[in-house]
């Protein structure tokens, strides 16, 4: 809560033009935009939460549920797509039982599809935090998830 207040302190009350920077800052600090955060921002900017929610959902980058302890960013760029990231995504979806943007019930995993991450030579690419997993094949997914599960439990 105080995190949001700290962020809002940096902006002028009622300044609608700062909505997106504020949303970005809050997402950066909390990992997602909670209902509470949206209400607080709405009061601060004198804006309807409906408007804020409507605008935020327009952008893929904003999340409305907390990300998992391990957040996988699966490249869906052209090259990775041609190299078969679709099958990888299907495998991840089946393994975790969630859709892109969702978080598993145990809070361990979430994943999203991204535009090109620049690893075209080594695709399909999955990025977790600072680490890149390259040349990921469909059959590698179960092993990868097991490995990442350990990582999640360490966090």
């Amino acid at each position, binding site marked *: 809560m105080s995190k949001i207040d700290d962020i809002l302190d940096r902006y002028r009350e009622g300044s609608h033009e700062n909505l997106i920077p504020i949303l970005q800052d809050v997402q950066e600090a909390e990992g997602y935009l909670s209902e509470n955060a*949206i*209400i607080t921002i709405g009061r601060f900017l004198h804006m*309807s*939460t*409906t408007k804020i929610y409507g605008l935020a*959902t*327009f952008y893929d980058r904003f999340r409305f549920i907390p990300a998992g302890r391990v957040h996988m960013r699966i490249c869906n760029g052209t090259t990775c797509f041609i190299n078969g990231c679709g099958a990888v995504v299907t495998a991840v979806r089946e393994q975790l039982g969630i859709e892109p943007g969702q978080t598993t019930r145990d809070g361990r995993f979430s994943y999203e599809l991204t535009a090109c991450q620049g690893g075209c030579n080594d695709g399909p690419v999955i990025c977790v935090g600072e680490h890149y997993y390259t040349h990921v094949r469909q059959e590698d997914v179960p092993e990868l998830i097991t490995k990442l599960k350990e990582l999640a439990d360490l966090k």
Partner: protein
Amino acid sequence: MQFTIEVNNKSIRAEKGETILSALNRNGIIIPTLCRMEEFTPTGACRMCVVEVEGRDRLVTACSVLVEEWMKIKTHSPRVIRARKTIVELLLSNHPDDCLYCDRNLDCELQRLSDGMQVRERRIRGSKIKPRRDLSSPAIVRELSKCILCGRCLRVCEEVVTATSIDFIGRGRYTHVGPAMDRDFNFSSCIHCGQCVLVCPTGALHEKHYLTEVQEQLSKSDVTRVIQYSPLVPYALAEELGIKYSRDFDRLLNAALRKAGFDKVYLSGTGTDILITELADAIMEAADKPDKKPLIVSACPAWVKYCEQFTPELLPMLSTLKTPQQISGAIIKSVVPVTGEKPRLYTVSVTPCTAMKFEARRDSMTRKGISDIDTVLTVRELARLIVLYGIDITNIDPEPADEPMALRSSASLLAETAGGITESVLRTLAARKGEKEAEKPAQKKLRNTGNFRETMVSIGGRGYSVAVVDGLRGLEKIRQMIEAGARYDLVEVMACPGGCVNGGGMRTAGSREAVRQRSRFIWQADEQEAVRGPEQSATVADLYGRVFEQCIELTDRQLFHTHFSRRDVLL
């Protein structure tokens, strides 16, 4: 400044500063539009209104582009027609195509456009929108699969109603219209005014229907069925049914309702008369108090919910009186005799309003868990019932309504337009002081347009200061005035611009002019009718003098009052 432009190889006169659309419309050319709404800044989003302008590569939107002197316009060239038709075909590509079963069948703008463009086959096939029906609100249903994302509802909600309860959510093919956090209506800041329903071009937004419930009760043998209708309902019903309204229509409606199976027919207008009387009492009582605060009328249920949510600081000034519908309801549930064969009492109210559907279900409108009004129907629903039951309203004998609420004054009809309650209350105050028509000088001011009106009237040597908020956009002004210490005697707030004549339960697709026409009808009727105020009404005298005295529950008139409290919703 006027100049000549060329349209379809003929010259027409155009005004500098007007849009192409307005110049064409004035010269006998109709251009189809979809996202456009009167009195709103055009967005040119739907591109239905495209025309060809010589010298421009692309088609231009007539609604948003200003007309210029050099323009040579083509409004029905093959290119224009093809573009418009494709737009409709694209809109239809993911539409459910269940027109026959749709709420707005035969009254749908998309249907009319598609017919007008002569779309006769499905040329473009898109994946259908995932059906999602939001039935959570007691007043308004949202059917996402039928939404064509024209955005009219959310513009009205933000710019006219100022509640901003709905907006576009998501992007691309996932875009849909909904309240904050993608919740259902019931959890939103929606005030159920139904303005979005009036502007929705398809069946995506409509009132919640309670006709099945009514039919069920009408078919039971052990139920005493009672119906009351608002003063505007006969006129609105004639409009909805496409029948020419005459003075007799009110009494024809009474007969029609009895034919449909209702045992008693009452007038909500009598409730309005009581409201006016009670308001006049409250004003006279408060007039000379040193700490007098403005008295804000609570007769509009949409406004009441708005106040509870957005402006709780005004709640202490809000009159505790119920709306006319609920006052009548309280009387009905107290005094209507239930005979041995029909021991159960079922009450229906017909109104031009969707918010009344919500209001009837408020906790404070029930006694021992029983609602004063069981079902609220809009004018549109009543028209359907009459058609369904095959009642030929033009071919029956007129009948009076039932005592003790058989007559209404013209003041109660007046209350259906914005400013009408104020005018009626002033009229009653004047009559009490024996000054006939002392309110006349205020009439022009109160019947004006614009979302905020105020005036001062002198009655019995005392000045009464009144204000009218016509559509919630005028609310900001009244808040400022009250904050600055303005000591109004009466403040009337109507959520719908124009008042109940523009209510969410009225005929859809009404223009500003059509709404104004309804007001003019009311003003005309007010001139002609004999009983012009509750103080002249024998019915009101009988209620106060006899009925209320004989019924223990009504003697202290506490049943006409309710309470309001701050409402926590996602704003």
